[in-house]
């Protein structure tokens, strides 16, 4: 085992640590190797986690974080290496065995059944009852008790999971895993779909679990929360272990540098001046969505980046979906270049030059069994036709390769199934899909969820570039820094209404935060 190097450890602060550094780790993985056809995902990785710590696992998209965790939870078996739990060697071949060992996992792609209720999902596969009839009252009661313990208030146990927003689905998934009472809890990017408030809530829960001595492995691309909440961090780069460090006294820059192997100079590419937005390309007046949006009016100019933000459920997602024809109960008028249009289906929207990327990567973004290439080119196939019905393979391959390079998609080749890509790389594929299709108005909901810091900066630069070329971009995001960084104008939605509009530079994070929370001026 390679010794972990506490390079940035601050000697004064280590004395204050509550937990004994010399306690035997509850979990030890040594020399883990995992190969997939065409690439080595993990190349001799060590990980050691102590009881009662929140241990961050950090690395760029495709570094091997999820693969390492899937080995721990029995989804994959390692090609080499061994695993010890409480000092005893174990081999984990099935997820069930991992659960029996007390290892509970919240996967990056949620594994809930959308058609079932929240409560049924939580107790799926271990329904109380006599073996034939499920005891529904028992399920409901346990779910309520569980939610009470986790201080989850606004989720109804009888609601169908598919109807919940992504952030709440994430909480249900976490509740489900916690109901197994794990000793080791793995959370693979649980905060990606969460806004600040839910993130804070999640960490309250996690700190409680830490007090009880549970070991928590936490994957995230958000360094702020890692620095604030985690005790130690293990960093992976390209399938190899970089180091394991103590978080005391580490700065964000140091963490970024360890992760990507170089300094990240510019995070946001600010446009020098306000982009001209004289030509209105999209005009929305008095748009309402049943139970979600109330009487919203705005315009979007050519070459402008508009950021829309708000609390969970403030209506921003429904607004975006309405512009793409996938939202029920829409009233009001939408004008494209001055003409009133009716958008009833994505196909119509695309024909009107509007594209939408939604936050539901797996459900709405990808066809898992198709290749990376086929996914990226799907909206643009018409452009690669020859003899009216055939696909021009050469042109398609060329365009896809270009797009993959631009977004730095990490895959063994463009022909592998998109489902074998890492989460962040799948997200890049969806982005690539819409960037390849030459549309005037691009609407992105949480475009950079699950994408690592380095790639994020590149994507922001790319969006900026597109705006300079005259595309109009609407970014819907709960990430205030992202919104502040890229938007020419910022729309704040609160309680279903568009409450504030800020110009670039007119607002700082604090003001924006209070606006998001409903402050009027």
């Amino acid at each position, binding site marked *: 085992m390679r010794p972990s190097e506490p390079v940035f450890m601050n000697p004064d602060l280590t004395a204050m640590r509550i937990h004994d550094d010399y306690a035997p780790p509850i979990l030890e993985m040594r020399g883990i190797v995992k190969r997939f*056809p065409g690439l*080595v995902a993990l190349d001799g990785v060590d990980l050691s986690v102590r009881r009662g710590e929140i241990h961050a696992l950090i690395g760029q998209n495709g570094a091997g974080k999820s693969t390492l965790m899937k080995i721990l939870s029995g989804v994959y078996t390692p090609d080499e290496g061994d695993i010890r739990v409480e000092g005893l060697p174990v081999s984990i071949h099935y997820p069930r065995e991992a659960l029996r060992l007390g290892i509970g996992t919240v996967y990056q792609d949620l594994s809930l059944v959308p058609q079932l209720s929240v409560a049924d999902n939580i107790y799926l596969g271990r329904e109380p009852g006599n073996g034939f009839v499920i005891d529904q009252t028992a399920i409901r009661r346990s779910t309520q008790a569980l939610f009470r313990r986790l201080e989850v208030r606004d989720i109804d146990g009888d609601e169908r999971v598919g109807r919940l927003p992504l952030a709440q689905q994430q909480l249900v998934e976490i509740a489900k895993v916690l109901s197994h009472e794990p000793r080791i809890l793995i959370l693979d990017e649980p905060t990606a779909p969460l806004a600040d408030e839910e993130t804070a809530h999640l960490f309250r829960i996690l700190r409680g679990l830490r007090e009880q001595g549970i070991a928590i492995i936490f994957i995230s691309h958000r360094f702020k929360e890692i620095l604030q909440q985690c005790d130690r961090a293990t960093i992976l780069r390209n399938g190899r272990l970089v180091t394991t460090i103590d978080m005391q006294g580490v700065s964000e820059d140091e963490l970024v540098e360890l992760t990507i192997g170089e300094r990240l100079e510019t995070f946001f590419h600010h446009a020098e001046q306000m982009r001209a937005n004289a030509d209105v390309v999209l005009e929305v007046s008095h748009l309402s969505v049943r139970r979600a949006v109330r009487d919203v009016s705005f315009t979007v100019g050519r070459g402008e980046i508009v950021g829309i933000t708000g609390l969970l459920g403030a209506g921003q997602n429904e607004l975006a979906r309405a512009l793409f024809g996938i939202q029920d109960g829409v009233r009001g008028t939408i004008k494209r270049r001055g003409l009133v249009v009716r958008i009833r289906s994505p196909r119509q929207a695309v024909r009107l030059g509007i594209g939408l990327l939604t936050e539901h990567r797996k459900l709405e*973004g990808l066809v898992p069994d198709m290749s990376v290439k*086929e996914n990226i080119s799907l909206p643009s*196939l018409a452009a690669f*036709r020859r003899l009216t019905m055939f696909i021009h393979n050469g042109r398609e391959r060329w365009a896809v390769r270009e797009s993959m390079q631009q977004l730095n998609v990490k895959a*063994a080749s463009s022909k592998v199934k998109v489902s074998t890509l890492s989460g962040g790389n799948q997200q890049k594929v969806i982005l690539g899909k819409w960037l390849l299709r030459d549309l005037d108005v691009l609407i992105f909901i949480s475009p950079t969820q699950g994408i690592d810091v380095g790639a994020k900066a590149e994507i922001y630069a790319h969006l900026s570039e597109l705006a300079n070329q005259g595309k109009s971009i609407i970014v819907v995001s709960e990430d205030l820094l992202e919104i502040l960084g890229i938007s020419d104008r910022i729309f704040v939605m609160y309680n279903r209404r568009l409450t504030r509009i800020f110009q670039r530079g007119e607002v700082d994070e604090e003001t924006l935060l209070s606006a998001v929370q409903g402050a009027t001026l």
Partner: protein
Amino acid sequence: MANMAEAPERRPSLIPARADGWTALSTLSTVVVVIALFLFFGLTSERFFLPQNLLNILKQMSIVGILGIGMTVVILVGGIDLSVGSVVLLSSAVTALLLDSYDVAPVPAIGAGLVIGALVGLVNGVLVEVAGISPVIATLGTLIAVRGLGQILIENTYIWVTDPLFVDIASDTIAFLPIMAVIMLVLYVVFAIVLKQTVFGRYVYAIGGNPIAARLSGVPLLRVKILAYVLSGLLAAVAGMLTAATVGVVGPNAGAGMEFNAIAAVVLGGARLSGGVGRVEKTLLGTAIFTMVLNYLTLSGVTAIWQQTVTGFLVLGAVLLERFVQRGK
């Protein structure tokens, strides 16, 4: 990609590093099964390898195989078409009547039969995609209604098909291959290309793989899915013509139960019944397995009822094997 470049050493792996390693592997294994069965049947039955019997197998394969193409397309988009056996009856009845009672020339008569088949497919497509009836129910309805229509047309008796064109189709060969088999192979080549190389084919896989993502990508779901049913109806009508040619007569039970043979061929070919995964090439292999087993059972003197039972278990076995392989992966 960066990962590949920096990996210090890579051991040779048994699993091909090709992108479609697994599908290539499983196609290969299906081919191996076909060859193994072929040899086994030939070595254990005196008559299996006789040229006449091999020709018979090819002819039987042609009809199931052509139905299997349409069924593959419909299953790929996430549907199913139970009406194809009835379309075999209706289309051949229309053609036979036109030839027999109205003295229409064979080519327009065949054309009319094919149009009828496509129309039934259109009805199926509209029932499923526009009216929103589940595919099983909708095509079960047309299965019954269309068979009824066919039987009304031929007044529940038998109509002889004696036109020389049909006699030729049934008996002629091109370079040892029966014309029927040639027709089937041409259709397989055409549809393999359609599914792999055309925009329609790509849409078929996208819709079957994830209809929501496909819709949000601007794929014309309705059009593609309806076209899938139309193609299935059209191909069933082609199978109807071949059935009329081989049997030489159209009777009330023509094509009855063929939908299950077609589904069996698709399933044996490893397509996923919920859509998105499957290939016509593999359905052809499935057809070969299915037909050879039936033929062998006949040669061994197994009665029709038992044949049915055995093929039923064969299909179940194939599905279980598929599950098992999926799990092992």
